């Protein structure tokens, strides 16, 4: 049996938020491994620490202790500049609220991260290709406010894909969508995972959405259960 390539190794991370005098433990001694081509689903109740875990993995936040190895390199100790570079080149992050730039069209939102790395002409070409991949090739010039929630989320997925990330993180990407749009978005993830071997880590607390993943981990009170 072929050994799966480990992309992310999480070792005993802890994270506590301070709300004034109160310390709220969000992650307690979490360890896990993410392999190339995984479609990992993280579930758990509200406040269980799912989003906190995803933000640590997506390098939006740092754990208080423990380590996160991205291809065997500890990213928790890196300066913000290096972490930003990793976010740009190696990771894709999809927010629950789409998080598009309101004044940029669909294609401009998608090409924005790529413009950090290459000329805008080639970025545009690639952005259109990625938008095609998520089924939005006919709305490339639309502004976010001219798109439905599902379409906006597809633009956010395309933006996450534009720099060919090693891992895509999606924080409850269907939470604000109706069931049809949600299925549409999930199909995109499925296709990306099956056809392009994209590694996907997705949070959901919808039971039926867990069926899209290969692996499911559940968090409760900041710990894996």
């Amino acid at each position, binding site marked *: 049996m072929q050994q799966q390539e480990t992309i992310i190794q999480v070792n005993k991370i802890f994270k506590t*938020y*301070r*709300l004034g005098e109160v310390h709220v433990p969000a992650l307690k001694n979490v360890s896990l491994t993410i392999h190339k081509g995984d479609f990992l689903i993280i579930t758990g109740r509200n406040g269980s620490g799912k989003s906190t875990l995803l*933000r640590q993995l997506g390098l*939006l*936040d740092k754990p208080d202790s423990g380590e996160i190895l991205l291809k065997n390199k500890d990213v928790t100790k890196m300066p913000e*500049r290096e972490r*930003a*570079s990793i*976010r*740009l*080149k190696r990771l894709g*992050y999809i*927010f629950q609220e789409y*998080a*598009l*730039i*309101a*004044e*940029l069209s669909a294609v*401009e939102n998608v090409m*924005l*991260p790529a*413009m*950090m*790395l*290459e*000329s*805008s002409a080639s*970025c545009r070409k690639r952005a259109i290709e990625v938008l095609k991949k998520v089924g939005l090739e006919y709305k490339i010039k639309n*502004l976010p406010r001219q798109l439905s929630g599902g379409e906006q989320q597809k633009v956010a997925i395309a*933006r996450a894909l534009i*720099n060919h990330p090693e891992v895509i993180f999606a924080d409850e990407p269907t939470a604000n969508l109706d069931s049809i749009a949600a299925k549409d978005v999930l199909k995109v993830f499925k296709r990306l995972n099956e056809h392009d071997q994209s590694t996907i880590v997705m949070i959901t607390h919808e039971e039926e959405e867990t069926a899209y993943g290969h692996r499911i981990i559940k968090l409760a009170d900041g710990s894996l259960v």
Partner: protein
Amino acid sequence: MKAEYKIPFILSWKHLLRSNKWTLSLIIFFMSIAFINMIFVPSLFNGIVDGFNKQIITTTTGNILITPRDGKDFISDSSETINRIESTDGVTAASAQMLVPGTLKFDGKKGSWSIYAINPDQEKKVTTVSEKIIDGEYLDPSDETGILLGNDITSTETTNEGDNPFSLKGASVGDTVAVIFGNTEYEFTIRGIFKTKFNTADQRGFITQEALKKMNPGYVDEATSISVTINLEGDEENVMQSLKDRGVRENIYSWQQASSLMSSVSDSFLSINVILSIFGVLIAAITVFIVIYIDISSRRQEIGILRAIGIRPYLIRAMYIILSAVYSVAGVLLGTVLFFAIIVPYFNAHPFVLPIADAKLLVNPGDFIARLETLIWVAIAAGLVPAVTITRTKLLDAIWGSK
């Protein structure tokens, strides 16, 4: 050029193009008002000082005042001196004045005022007294019995100190006043009353040189002062040198030197101007800062998202610097148009009426540029500070607010 350098330009351009036009217009309008506020006060004070200076020049001293050389009471042979002055490069005209030491008397009231014997035609070329007649008419050169009086001499107006105790109170055109010269009273008919609004001038009276000759047959072509106007304002020093070179041996003073008290008043106005301008700049700076700070702070989440997807913080800061610069330049342009197309013409047509002069708005190009630069730099700082703050806060706080 690195591809990423285009990002702030593209982001700011799209922002300007597609953001709420009403908000954008409001920001630019606020900037223009702040800019107008910055240039209005100094322009007003420049206008007051300029109006004040012009009053000194046009009603009393001319640009240059010539007085008898040291040790002499009079400029003798004043006609010859005037010919020499008027033939000097840069001189427009000159007029000799002879101070008549005397007392005015009317209807039982009397007081001492400066009465000057002049050639009305020459004086007309140097001062604006002839244009400021509010009642009656200007003097004719051959008039031997007429007198022209300043409004302060005849005024019945009540001043802040109460009734003007020195006024002839109500003497009007056609009335006879007596000029007591030596021990003799000479009767004069008031031909006209003038009001320049400049009290030094309005406390003067004028008679003709012919009238003085009649009063004092020994008077021959003498003057206690000669007022000179020049072609180019501000060129006093050069013309004074030319007058000396032409052989004018009398004492020659610029209007500033001749009216040292007046110029100290001008200096005081300028000092007030500086103080008020500092406050004006400060208020405008705070206004601009707040407007831009609010605009950028409201985009906190957008900045967080840009950071989250890997856009480098310096590019985000550059974007907001560009935006702030565009806001401020647009505000300056709009403010300049509003100021020069509406405000300045309005105040030229309806100047501020002050007791000493009518003040219009006068823009000093140096002040204008300094304030323009200040506004742009303040706007850039106002854009930079929140952008730096937000790009330095924790990423999660930038996107979702403080936990």
